[in-house]
């Protein structure tokens, strides 16, 4: 029966695709549209990932995809003023804000812009038409549409998203902040597509915030492709804060050229079911990559992080650190792989996944892996899942700090290792506060933007 259901699901998406192909193509150039049919065929081969596939063993996406959603093949007119319901108030955080509403670039609030130094911040849609030479060069070059069926599905349906371009040698002074808003009166599915291109020697920071603004079920299947050129430097921070009725599959494809440096930090405060895929390719010598994640889950939430760190060239350094606190009957999975190719001598690659399980019912499946074909490398990997340290608990309590407060201090300290590495200082401070609130249980019913939720009078 379940097999039939999967075939049905696959056909349902394909049928929907062909029925709406003309609408999907509308307003987008041929170099985007010509990838669609091949992509849907690739999707058809594997369908929605299921738990019999090794890489999706602990995360069953089928129930989420089986639900009926409105798919936004055209932007839905939303007749309210976002100013009334949404406001980002990280103090002192001055950013170029980009709003994506149900996956569509929301121009009313955030105009497209070209900065004096040539930096472009606009919609994927506009970029595809206006800057075809840049888009053509990078679009669908890093995303894996053959191996990852959901990336193929996204490529078949991609119509809009965010686009960032930083020209050679330029520095973007302010971070770009992309805010993904999901809001509708009916259940919705978003498949936005982001493309960030950073040319040689450029520098930029990008913040992505995900959140749900209405109590409906939402499904997101997003793809972000990032090209970081030679000697370029990028800081990426993502804050996931969606409600329990949301499912998110986020596919992040990074290509780093020689001497480049990328740090990516994902803070998951809340979400129903989250699958974060990180495909990171160090495609030149002397790259540095730091990919970190922190997830705090409770009740029936589920988070699955999948990382492929591909060391394709010598003298690169990478560090993966994923930490989680799981409460109630929350579940999680971590599947991280370091691949060191034959030529990648002098690689230094580290990977760790540490979890605190606060109850006997919380469950974590952790699978760190090393695949090494070079012989002169330094690599390590490891995972721990356990309770809070008894000795530390007693030490704190023996100084008069109650159990609950002691637990909080230790969890906070556990989380600090990740948060402390966020390089945008005001954001780091704000995330510290949010995490503390989250750990205190004051954020769990939050339905609004993580940047002001939990504050009195605002929800």
């Amino acid at each position, binding site marked *: 029966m379940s097999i039939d259901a999967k075939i049905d699901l696959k056909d349902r998406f394909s049928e929907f695709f062909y029925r709406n192909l003309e609408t999907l193509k509308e307003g987008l150039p041929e170099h985007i549209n010509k990838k669609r049919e091949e992509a849907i065929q690739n999707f058809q081969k594997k369908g929605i990932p299921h738990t019999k596939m090794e890489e999706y063993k602990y995360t069953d996406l089928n129930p989420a995809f089986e639900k009926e959603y409105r798919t936004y093949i055209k932007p839905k007119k939303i007749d309210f003023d976002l100013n009334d319901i949404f406001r980002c108030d990280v103090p002192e955080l001055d950013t170029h804000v980009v709003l994506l509403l149900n996956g569509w670039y929301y121009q009313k609030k955030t105009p497209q812009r070209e900065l004096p130094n040539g930096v472009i911040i606009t919609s994927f849609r506009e970029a595809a038409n206006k800057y075809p030479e840049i888009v053509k060069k990078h679009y669908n070059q890093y995303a894996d549409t053959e191996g990852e069926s959901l990336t193929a599905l996204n490529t078949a349906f991609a119509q809009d998203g965010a686009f960032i371009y930083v020209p050679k040698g330029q520095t973007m002074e302010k971070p770009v902040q992309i805010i993904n808003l999901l809001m509708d009166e009916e259940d919705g599915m978003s498949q936005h597509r982001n493309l960030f291109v950073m040319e040689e020697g450029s520098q930029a920071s990008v913040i992505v915030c995900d959140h749900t603004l209405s109590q409906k079920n939402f499904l997101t299947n997003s793809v972000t492709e990032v090209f970081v050129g030679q000697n370029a430097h990028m800081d990426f921070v993502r804050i996931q804060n969606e409600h329990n009725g949301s499912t998110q599959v986020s596919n992040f494809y990074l290509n780093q050229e020689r001497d480049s440096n990328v740090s990516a930090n994902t803070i998951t405060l809340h979400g129903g079911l989250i699958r974060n895929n990180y495909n990171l390719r160090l495609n030149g010598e002397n790259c540095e990559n730091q990919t970190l994640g922190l997830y705090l889950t409770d009740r029936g939430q589920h988070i699955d992080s999948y990382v492929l760190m591909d060391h394709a060239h010598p003298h690169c350094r990478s560090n993966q650190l994923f930490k989680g606190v799981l409460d109630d009957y929350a579940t999680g999975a971590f599947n991280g792989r370091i691949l060191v190719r034959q030529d990648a001598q002098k690689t230094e690659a580290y990977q760790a996944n540490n979890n605190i399980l606060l109850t006997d019912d919380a469950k974590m499946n952790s699978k760190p892996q090393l695949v090494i074909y070079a012989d002169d490398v330094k690599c390590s990997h490891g995972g721990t899942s356990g309770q809070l*340290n008894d*000795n*530390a608990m*007693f*030490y*704190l*309590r*023996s*100084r*008069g*700090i*109650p*159990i609950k*407060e*002691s637990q909080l*201090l*230790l969890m*906070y*300290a*556990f*989380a*600090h*290792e990740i948060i402390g590495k966020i390089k945008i200082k005001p954001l780091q401070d704000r995330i510290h506060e949010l995490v503390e609130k989250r750990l205190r249980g004051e954020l769990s019913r939050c339905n609004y933007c993580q940047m002001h939720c939990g504050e009195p009078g605002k929800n």
Partner: protein
Amino acid sequence: MLKIKNLHASIEGNEILKGIDLEVNKGEVHAIMGPNGSGKSSLASVLAGRELFEVTEGEVIYEGEDLLEMAPEERAKEGLFLGFQYPVEIPGVSMMNFLKTAINEQRKHKGQEAMKSSDFLKMMREKKDLVEIDSNLTNRSVNEGFSGGEKKRNEIFQMAMLNPKLSILDETDSGLDIDALKIVANGVNKLKSPDNATIVITHYQRLLNYIVPDKVHVLYGGKIVKSGDKQLALELEEKGYDWLKKQAMD
């Protein structure tokens, strides 16, 4: 202040304390000595409320209350302090945050308001001078990367900050060189008052050259086998523990 009567305690079914009687009054300093494995540290842990130990018999009355009924944090808020033999490293928890939380919990318990940051910092400065601890330690995470001596000094610093009624210092002297030992002892002496009391647990007599005890007890096989004044410590230094072991066996 503290009355221990016939205290028995065990860990995983093994009896470690086999009937301890001890009375400590305000203003007194008691030294508990004894060979390794005699139950000294276990006694300290039981008094501080470590849950690994099960009290099977006896009672402990602290300031008129049943101490054994209280959770570790309640004991601390009532003025009991344990200086750890092996202070725990807690990466990510700053000394500042840790001490502030501890002090404000204590104040809350007494019905006082939380301390103002400026007052807290002033107090920290004063106490830091008292125990000669470096600012670069108090700005770090709790005990993280501290040397053995720094950890012990940090225990005395916490003691100074929390101003306890009864301090139990568990082998605070172990692993200290003579200069560090003097500093620690000096801190303890400065904090001494007619209203508080200290129990110093030690293996060696040398600490007692700097902290002069009113009473000395020898713990062996989970029992206090001999009590006396500071002369007893000197006697132990000279003769070792064997004669007491023999006595205890007879």
